[in-house]
């Protein structure tokens, strides 16, 4: 579809999109036509060097569940102002259906120097009355002074503290931004969901729940050499939960080495003087975890933590996430203590 270089006129892009729908409609099969779906605007801010194909595939996978107008902005570190845009559609035909479902995608390439101009371009391109989510894939962009103008358009900004070079600093920065009123999400927190869920599930059992106030020690073993943000989050979340039942355990982190650093290898909750852990979850082969509690052993599958899986979960929470906000503040405190 249409492309421009140097500058971008939002009206032109909107016009191109309208043309796109007309052409898709003409390609359609008689009465069945094309179904247009949209539940949000998803703005993706990425480096030019970021894998464009991988981003495209992630967005395509997200579309069936989170149909959205996607605006992908690819930045290059350049002092000269430059902007270009193109419009296309992501379409899919659900199995057994006659009707194609399509979502729009706008791709903008911009130099860093153009960042101050971008908010004025993106704002008119957002879908009215629907949430705007900004997925920032690069810590460098998050740190650019003009980034706040772009993030101000979005209800929520999704970051990944695992991409930051220093987990402690990242948590501190994000906690500061959250305290200033920005609605954030961190994919490091999202990576924890299945582990947290397994822990919560263990204590749905009343016999195990009764043991909770006795927890005196927590062990969190992870890959890598430095403590990753995921470990700080998990420790903060566990300590907060245990404090509610009157337990104030010690936390010990253990680095097992290897990659990726955010992956847990073992999480254990112990009571002083007991040989067996009250609950332990160990990483097993093949995206699985072995859960031991009360003499029972069970196996749980852990879904692959792809960008798609993480974003799929985050996009389903466009509003506040009180558990995350509490954990972020506590994790930052723990990391900086």
């Amino acid at each position, binding site marked *: 579809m249409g492309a421009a270089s140097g500058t971008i006129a939002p009206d032109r892009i909107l016009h191109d999109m309208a043309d796109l729908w007309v052409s898709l409609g003409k390609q359609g099969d008689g009465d069945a036509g094309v179904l247009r779906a949209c539940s949000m605007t998803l703005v993706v801010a990425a480096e030019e060097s970021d894998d464009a194909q991988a981003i495209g595939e992630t967005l395509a996978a997200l579309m069936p569940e989170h149909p959205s107008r996607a605006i992908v902005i690819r930045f290059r570190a350049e002092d000269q102002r430059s902007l270009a845009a193109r419009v296309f559609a992501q379409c899919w035909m659900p199995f057994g259906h006659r009707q194609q*479902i399509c979502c729009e995608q706008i791709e903008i390439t911009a130099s860093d120097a153009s960042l101050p101009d971008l908010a004025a371009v993106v704002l008119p391109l957002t879908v009215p009355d629907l949430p705007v989510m900004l997925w920032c894939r690069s810590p460098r962009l998050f740190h650019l002074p003009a980034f706040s103008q772009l993030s101000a358009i979005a209800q929520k900004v999704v970051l990944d503290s695992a991409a930051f070079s220093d987990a402690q600093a990242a948590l501190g920065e994000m906690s500061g931004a959250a305290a200033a009123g920005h609605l954030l999400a961190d994919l490091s927190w999202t990576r924890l969901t299945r582990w947290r*869920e397994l822990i919560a599930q263990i204590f*749905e059992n009343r016999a195990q729940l009764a043991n909770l106030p006795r927890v005196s020690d927590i062990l969190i073993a992870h890959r890598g050499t430095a403590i990753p943000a995921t470990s700080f989050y998990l420790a903060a979340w566990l300590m907060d939960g245990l404090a509610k039942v009157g337990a104030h355990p010690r936390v010990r982190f253990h680095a097992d080495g290897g990659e990726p650093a955010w992956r847990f290898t073992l999480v254990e909750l112990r009571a002083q003087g007991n040989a067996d852990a009250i609950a332990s979850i160990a990483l097993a082969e093949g995206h699985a975890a072995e859960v031991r509690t009360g003499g029972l052993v069970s196996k749980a*599958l852990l879904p692959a933590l792809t960008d798609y899986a993480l974003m799929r979960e985050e996009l389903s929470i466009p509003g506040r*996430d009180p558990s995350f906000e509490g954990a972020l503040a506590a994790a930052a405190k723990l990391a900086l203590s």
Partner: protein
Amino acid sequence: MSLENPFQDPLRFERRVPECAMVIFGANGDLTKRKLLPALYRLAYERRLDAGFAVLGISRTAMSDGDFREKMLASVKEFLEDSPFDADVWTAFAQGLFYMAGNFDDAAVYPALDARLKEIETARHTGGNTLFYLSAQPSQYIPIAQGLAAANVGKAGSGWRRIVIEKPFGHDLASAQKLSAELHSAFEESEVYRIDHYLGKETVQNILAFRFGNGIFEPLWNRRYVNHVQITAAESIGVESRGSYYQEAGALRDMIQNHLSQVMATIAMEPSATFRPNSVRDERSKLLRSIRVMKPDEVLQNTVSGQYGPAHIGGEDVPGFRQEQGVKPDAQTDTYAAVTFFVDNWRWAGVPFYLRSGKRLPKRVTEIAIQFNAAPLEIFNGDESTTAPNLLILRIQPEEGISLKFLSKRPGAGMKLRPVSMDFNYGSSFGERSPSAYETLLLDAIIGDATLYTRQDMVEASWAVVDAVQHVWDNTKFDFPNYAAGTWGPKAADDMLARCGHVWRQP
């Protein structure tokens, strides 16, 4: 003060279920193999069950725990729909599967069952919570309930006990009342979960979300704007191997008394004050009690009974109902039933609700069509398509979704209108796999959420309506067969609507 799990995160976690053991009566039967075990395995796969969750199967066949596990493994592999199978998850899940042989009429079985449950409770930490699932012949419901009561099975501990029963809940009002009375000798009504798998379907639940989560539809949802409602549940297959059962039941009892009445109640009920089980069920029950009970002389005007005859479909000869295995050659069973119901309340007075269900119809489809009144004035001087009324179609199966049909101007010169459809496809709008009705309903029973289960007063209210029809049908000799397999039913069904100026929608 009891301790609360401090780790819950409802925004991200699925609903958690408490520890429990499930006793399946009829563990060697088809329902267990095709539906229950695959649904339970799927829940385990999705990490929805407690690590100690246990199943104790019971039926007449002698089998060891190991044999039972092998058998269930084969069933899960065969009947697990659109889900992957994982050997490790199965191995952990199968450790919680147990079996005992027993005759449900034998009083000695129940103390043995109680003892076995206690062993399981100790080994698997099930906390004394027990869900009894009666996947047995309806004639055995009462002996089982009495046996459980006499031996106090599962009553000693601090846990809860619930019992799930499958339809039919009696074969008429009197037998439904008797069944409830017998069940109540062993269980409180709040512990009785009458399962109607239609209510577990995502799209039926979505009716509640559609009606009460949106502000724009409810103001139109009444006699001022709705012309009539059609509820269709069509099956393309015949009675298959269920001939002898079906011969005694018929479409009116098998579908309209339960599934379609419940769907109608969901469509027509008043908004519930809260989304608590009894609040929702109170409204459903009120609606069912508002359905006008036909007088004998009104029945044949407002209902149609049908039975399919043989036909040649797609190059294949298909038998008529009377030629099916186990069916009497002069059977008067209705394989098709259509009824016109009126709801006597302020919201729906005078609005016909047409319900139809049948076997060997052209396709398998379940849907609700709400036809709105046409625009009061026709100003476009076109053909009849320019006055086509708005239709809201709620598709339950197989293509789950919602469509709104309205008129739009055709592009070009002149004011020519044509009907267009605005579609919402449930599956494609939410890419996630929908849980099966049994997954939803089993989880609800374990959690103790009876919202989607049928209560005694609801069963009795729908029987009161259906009994009035059935009684007349039982005393009428129909000239069967009266529709050919592969057609949309008897002509009399078209005539029934034509008398009110309506036509059946072709799904």
